[in-house]
């Protein structure tokens, strides 16, 4: 690293992440540590597009038409590209992430929203971590996972429970490790659509830390655990039939596993080296952790959600 480069240390996904810009909505790490991952988001670090790219993975387009592609460079690094022209290079060992291209108007907050979500998650995958598309909330000292596709309400449920006094470990991608499985904290922020922000915090709520160019706002969540402490997972709740609940329907192990594979962040990557880890993670969860289909309540009817979950999951929170 250039000695003149600024350096800001964060604790993200249980790793020490050294970033060359100050991230607008993430508290700095309280104790110094040797960085596990270097995150380079300064425009000065933008390099020419890497050569010898071969297409490795291409996602299906989401409802809003966005998608992502991953190419592999000749050196084995990965380049993750989004439809808006933003792209990042992730080193083959997952120890560095660098911005390659971005629209000129993007703010540090915009770039961080990408980098701290799918891009850092890809770096973690390269480091051997397994992640689920799930938010994670601490209830009774245990992690409860809310798994679902984009738009299923993972972040909204996390924000509702955070407002009711529960610590949030993750709003979108949760690293799961060990057997019995445990959840690690990811990023101390929740990404919310403006209507959800208004409904939960009121139209007058000010969020100076949000990423201004994005429709989806990042809300810093004070009080979220910032250490690398893993919480044993007490339940996995799959978000289905939004707005009709709260209601839980218990799932068998096989039904749970099929959903877990569908929501595994990198299960669709053609990466044989990680297939066994993903299979181990999903089968450990399916076999050891109770799972239910969860109908979340609407925001207007969410006042008792935390109490409902504590009551329904009481047997698993001991």
């Amino acid at each position, binding site marked *: 690293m250039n000695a003149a480069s600024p350096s800001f240390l964060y604790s993200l996904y249980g790793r020490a992440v050294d970033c060359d810009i100050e991230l607008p909505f993430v508290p700095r790490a309280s104790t110094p540590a040797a960085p596990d991952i270097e995150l380079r988001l300064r425009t000065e670090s933008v390099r020419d597009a890497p050569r010898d790219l071969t297409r490795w993975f291409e996602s299906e387009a989401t409802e809003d038409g966005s998608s992502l592609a991953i190419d592999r460079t000749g050196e084995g690094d990965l380049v993750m590209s989004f439809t808006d022209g933003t792209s990042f290079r992730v080193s083959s060992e997952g120890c560095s992430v660098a911005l390659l291209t971005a629209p000129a108007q993007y703010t540090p907050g915009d770039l961080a929203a990408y980098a701290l979500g799918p891009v850092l998650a890809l770096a973690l995958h390269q480091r051997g971590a397994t992640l689920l598309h799930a938010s994670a909330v601490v209830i009774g000292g245990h992690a409860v996972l809310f798994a679902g596709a984009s738009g299923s309400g993972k972040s909204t449920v996390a924000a509702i429970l955070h407002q009711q006094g529960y610590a949030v470990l993750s709003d979108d991608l949760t690293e799961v490790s060990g057997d019995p499985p445990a959840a690690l904290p990811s990023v101390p922020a929740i990404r919310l659509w403006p209507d959800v922000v208004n409904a939960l915090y009121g139209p007058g709520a000010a969020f100076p830390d949000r990423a201004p160019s994005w429709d989806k706002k990042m809300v810093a969540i004070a009080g979220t655990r910032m250490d690398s402490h893993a919480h044993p997972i007490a339940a996995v709740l799959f978000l289905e039939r939004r707005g009709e609940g709260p209601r839980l329907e218990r799932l068998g*192990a096989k039904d749970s596993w099929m959903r877990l*594979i569908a929501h595994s962040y990198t299960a669709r990557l*053609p990466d044989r080296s990680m297939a066994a880890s993903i*299979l181990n993670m999903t*089968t450990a969860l*399916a*076999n050891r952790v109770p799972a239910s289909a969860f109908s979340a309540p609407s925001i207007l009817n969410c006042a008792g959600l935390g109490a409902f979950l504590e009551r329904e999951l009481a047997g698993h929170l001991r």
Partner: protein
Amino acid sequence: MQGNLRVVAGEDVLVRNIGDELVLLDLQRGVYYGLDPIGARIWELLSGGLSIDETIERLLGEHEVSRQKLERDVRELIEELRERELISGHEP
């Protein structure tokens, strides 16, 4: 298919129990397959080193089912697993 044939899982196949069922992952193709509890038991016996005939005898002692139906079911499953290259057979 010889009754004394023994089968082994393919080199690129990962197998895990989920409840009383089995999941097979074909690493080459990136495809998952599921076996119900009966299929999982057949897999358990075959992968434990029993021949096809020995597997059928063992299962006849565990279930009230005609030999004819059981033989057909076991052989159909093995044939399907072989077609998908999830197992390979060898003489004892």
